[in-house]
């Protein structure tokens, strides 16, 4: 599912006169099958953008096109939820409310009118996908650990079988291992879709961006300032990113340090830490061989 924004702006209703535009004239494209990361300082409009993409709010100006079709307003003139988009909010575990994990998992698809047997089948697949087991079905969501709750909360969204999964800081407040598990499960979910599943990932962790992204969208003060592949972005625009209050991934820092010390540029095809380390080690090994 392709999502396209054309000159989209959004203004929050506000008490005082100076209601400002949270996002201004965005033009961008979210292509099917990609992992797109959205970075930007707090208050740069990321969360507003996510709500727009799910259809929780309607643009105050501009158009939101889904596979080329404009998203219409509901009968009452409100924004219309886009069923094919799954949105995982910040701290999604705060939305769990049922007495058992199973019931919470079934809640979304039930609202969509999915048949009982289908829901049953989905629960079994999804609970495994998020690294838990059927033994969790009868547990109360509130008695799980923080990381487990988070995974169940993400599972409740995956249960609705979205084509596009939006995650708003899904690793916030988790330990490194818990964060890794979450990202890995999202990655596995996307892989299982055969190129049809899109991930839109909001984060402040640049290492996470480097690890998974096909493309990075940088937001500043309600506008998109870059939409590029992560290698080009982090290697060429590190100064601009710093000016926007953003950092670069460790792997790029390593490459920069290397370039600075040896005056040599190493071309990499990915910013994953292992890949970059291997390239650097390979360079030195080759140097050593040449010397011998």
């Amino acid at each position, binding site marked *: 599912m392709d999502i396209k924004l054309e000159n989209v702006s959004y203004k929050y209703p506000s008490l005082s006169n100076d209601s400002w535009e949270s996002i201004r004239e965005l033009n961008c494209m979210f292509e099917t099958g990609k992992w797109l990361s959205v970075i930007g300082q707090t208050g740069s409009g990321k969360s507003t953008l996510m709500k727009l993409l799910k259809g929780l709010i309607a643009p105050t100006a501009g158009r939101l096109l889904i596979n080329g079709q404009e998203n219409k307003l509901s009968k009452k003139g409100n924004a219309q*939820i886009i069923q094919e988009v799954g949105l995982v909010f910040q701290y999604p575990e705060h*939305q769990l*409310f049922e007495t058992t994990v199973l019931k919470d998992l079934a809640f979304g698809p039930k609202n969509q009118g999915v048949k009982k047997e289908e829901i049953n089948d989905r629960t079994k697949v999804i609970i495994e996908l998020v690294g838990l087991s059927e033994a969790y079905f009868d547990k109360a969501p509130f008695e799980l650990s923080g990381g487990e709750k988070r995974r169940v909360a993400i599972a409740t969204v995956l249960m609705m079988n979205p084509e596009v999964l939006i995650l708003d800081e899904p690793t916030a407040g988790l330990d490194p291992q818990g964060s890794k598990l979450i990202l890995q499960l999202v990655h596995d979910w996307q892989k299982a879709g055969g190129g049809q599943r899109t991930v839109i990932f909001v984060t402040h962790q640049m290492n996470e961006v480097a690890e998974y992204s096909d493309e990075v969208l940088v937001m500043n003060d309600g506008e998109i300032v870059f939409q590029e592949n992560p290698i080009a972005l982090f290697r060429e625009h590190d100064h601009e990113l710093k000016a926007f209050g953003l950092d670069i991934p460790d792997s790029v820092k390593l490459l920069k340090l290397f370039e600075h010390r040896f005056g040599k540029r190493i071309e990499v095809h990915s910013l994953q830490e292992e890949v970059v380390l291997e390239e650097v080690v390979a360079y030195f090994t080759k140097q050593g061989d040449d010397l011998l």
Partner: protein
Amino acid sequence: MIENVLVGQFVETSSVFHRLDPRSKLISIFCIVIAFFLIDNAAGYLLAGLFVFGCITLSHIPWRIFLKGLKPILFILSFTIVYHILFTKGENLLFHYGILSIYIEGIISGSRLVVRIILLVLITSLLTLTTKPLELAYGFEVLCKPLKKLRFPVEQFSLMLAITLRFIPTIVMELDKIIEAQKARGVNFEDKSLMKKVLSYIPIIVPLLFTSINRAENLANAIDARAYGDGSGRTRYKTLRFETRDYIAMSISLFMVGTFLILKMLGG
């Protein structure tokens, strides 16, 4: 939803109301509320309306904000007026059909009550819109100090009041967030029967209670961690002192009470 809740929302402008001592504002508003209950004739309503209009204009807060605060009570207002029109009996019959008879007196008494409620809501919103919750609670605490002799826990009560006022907007914001999240999970709040509508709020109330209790626990820990205690015997950085303008404000309110009392006696 947040933009419709006025309680606990402070709007910063530089008006005389903002500079008044919270105690004088509390006393004045108390007097004015009493005064408004004394109104029983057209002249009184006119005077009260002009008074409220003047106060709101002086506060430099846009009218829009006050009107938004009236939105949540629209239901009560329409119920009041319908009730009075249908059930108040009088002498001047306006309309009669079957068991339904509408009297002019009903329309008048209904409208009077509605106008009174609107005036009361407007004038009390002026208090919360121009006073920071903490100042309000402090003012309340100082005013209630004499009650301490009767072993009434004034400081604790004022702390409780301050926390409540301070957290209303926070909780409403949290509520908005949860509503959005459950909408994203397919809950439909539109086009439903009343029963279904009530049921659809369970996925909102449970998480809200849960996060609110968590928040309360964290707040209690934070209060303990700073050795705040229960608020008793604490001194303040900012102490309250009556200025000339405070005496003027309170005199005006007392004058209002007097005027309405006279108007009532003259009318009666």
